């Protein structure tokens, strides 16, 4: 746990440094008061200070023997679900809403939840059709049609 938290402190410090570097072209002070870079500089420096305090507080007060919260066997399902969502985001404009959502729910139910084929397909159909009705038909959200563009629904 301590190692994970120390790594987190270092990542936060690096992020703060990049943030400060990214704002170096912003003016700190204008003629009558603070410029657009004033607040970001304060925040960047504060974040660096906090990450240093965090690092040393972890080093000093870490509970010995406490496991890292990122256990590989626990990460498998969240990583898989996020990967499925990322693929769905990539496919959304091309495949369109109905096909993408149907495939996404089908994968979540059958791959990650081990539903049987008939139950998984039925639920995926009902859910994707229900969401299409709710958002496209009732709430009039213009959902992407993708390869189904031109069809009467």
């Amino acid at each position: 746990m301590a190692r994970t938290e120390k790594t987190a402190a270092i990542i936060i410090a690096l992020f703060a440094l990049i943030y400060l570097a990214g704002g170096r072209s912003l003016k700190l002070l204008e003629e009558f008061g603070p410029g657009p870079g004033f607040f970001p500089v304060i925040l960047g420096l504060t974040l660096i200070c906090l990450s240093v305090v965090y690092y040393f507080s972890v080093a000093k007060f870490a509970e010995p023997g406490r496991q890292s919260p990122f256990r590989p066997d626990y990460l498998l399902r969240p990583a898989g679900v996020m990967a499925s969502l990322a693929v769905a985001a990539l496919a959304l404009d091309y495949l369109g809403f109905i096909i993408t959502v149907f495939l996404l729910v089908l994968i979540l139910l059958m791959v990650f939840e081990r539903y049987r084929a008939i139950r998984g397909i039925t639920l995926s159909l009902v859910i994707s059709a229900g969401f299409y009705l709710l958002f496209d038909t009732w709430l009039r959200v213009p959902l992407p049609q993708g390869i189904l563009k031109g069809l009467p629904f």
Partner: protein
Amino acid sequence: MPEVLTGIMKGFSIATLPMNLLLALVGCFCGTLVGALPGIGPSATIAILLPVTFGMEPTSAIIMLAGIYYGATYGGSITSILMNIPGDPSSVMSTLDGYQLAMQGRAGVALGMAAISSFIAGTFSVVALMLIAPPVADFAVRFGPPEYFALIFLGLTLIVYLGGKSVIKGLISGVAGLVIGTVGVDPMQGFGRYDFGIVRLADGVPFIVVAMGLFAVAEVLVNIEKPFKTEFITNKISGFLPTIKDWIACRGAFVRGTLIGFFVGVLPGAGATIASFLAYGIEKRVSKNPERFGAGAIEGVAAPEGANNAATGGAMVPLFALGIPGSSSTAILLGGMMMYGLRPGPLLISQNPDFFWGVVASMYIGNMMLLVMNLPLAGVFARLTRLPYSVLYPLILLFVVIGAYSLNNSVFEVWLVLIFGVVGYIMRKLDFPLAPLVLALVLGPMAEKALSQSLTMSHGSLAIFFTRPIAAVIFAFTLVMMVSPLLKKIWGRRQAG
């Protein structure tokens, strides 16, 4: 007083419009359901449903979203009592005696008392909100940028110091929120910052995307790490009305829970969870038989349930009167109000009386609806919570993806939501509180504007924050809050030494 009466009458004429009644009912139903369902909280639900409300009138939209907010605290008691699993953190204390009562065959009475206590406290808090918010707003009209900056600083400090286990993690979370808030055009000169040339980021990172990622996606990711199984009390639930003995036992708990809840709710960062813990602790302390607590004392259900409901009304006071949210849910409500074109702050009530009074009146009606829903329908909600998480989480994720897509009809927001989902997951795993980040993101641009205006007024001198009496008092209070944990530690060491 006549203004209050005129206002609330006007409010009722708005809240009783058929569409607003329906939306209040939908909000209360959804709120009770998500309060009862472990694995999804009110913040996530408000964030998920916010994009659905974009086509609505602001008053109607907030009536529904507020219904979710205060309805969730009603619903939280259902799973606490029947399953020993709190539906939301503010219902943790109700598990102690509520579940014991259910094991003794008094689940119906425990649910009934939770609903009645919630109704009494919820109604009181709406009356108090109606009486307190307008004068507070009138007073706050005198606030200039230094006072406003001091107030925002106080709000952020309180949520960091009261809201989490680790102050340093709360501070990092809050500063990270402020950092994200600097993306886009700066509020004074209109200079583009940290937008990487992406036009969509010119207006900043949409807070709703951050809220959906942090609360909804991250919650799902944490919950699906391992199979989600729950145990139910399987006996038929009946007899919701408490006995006269129960009423007598709870009369003090109603009053104490309500008052503690309301005043704790007004404080930014404290909220319904701390209110329910405090109310339970005090109830146990004043009881003549404290040993009954934890073994099925009905007051142990009435006090925390009253407190967490009163806190939701209390939290609306700074939201409506000052434009300062005190919790993640009210921060999302505030963000929603800004998206509908309202300008939260001391002028909100005077400039939008129909909105304020309409929402307040709907809260009276909503509390009535929730009492009716939670007494005879508690069993129905309990059955609804048996919806397997394996079906629920794909629905949550779909709402998130479509909600994000519908903001600009683009996949860009979907990517942002996924990124913030991962960030939220990592934060949850490392015990970083999420509320300071969302609150700071909403308040950040306001804080920067107030700071810049103050320093421009004083030609760069920080003395402006300490020479104006109201700002100085607020900063002094903030300072006391910041050093109090340190002083407590030093005092404790001296006592021990």
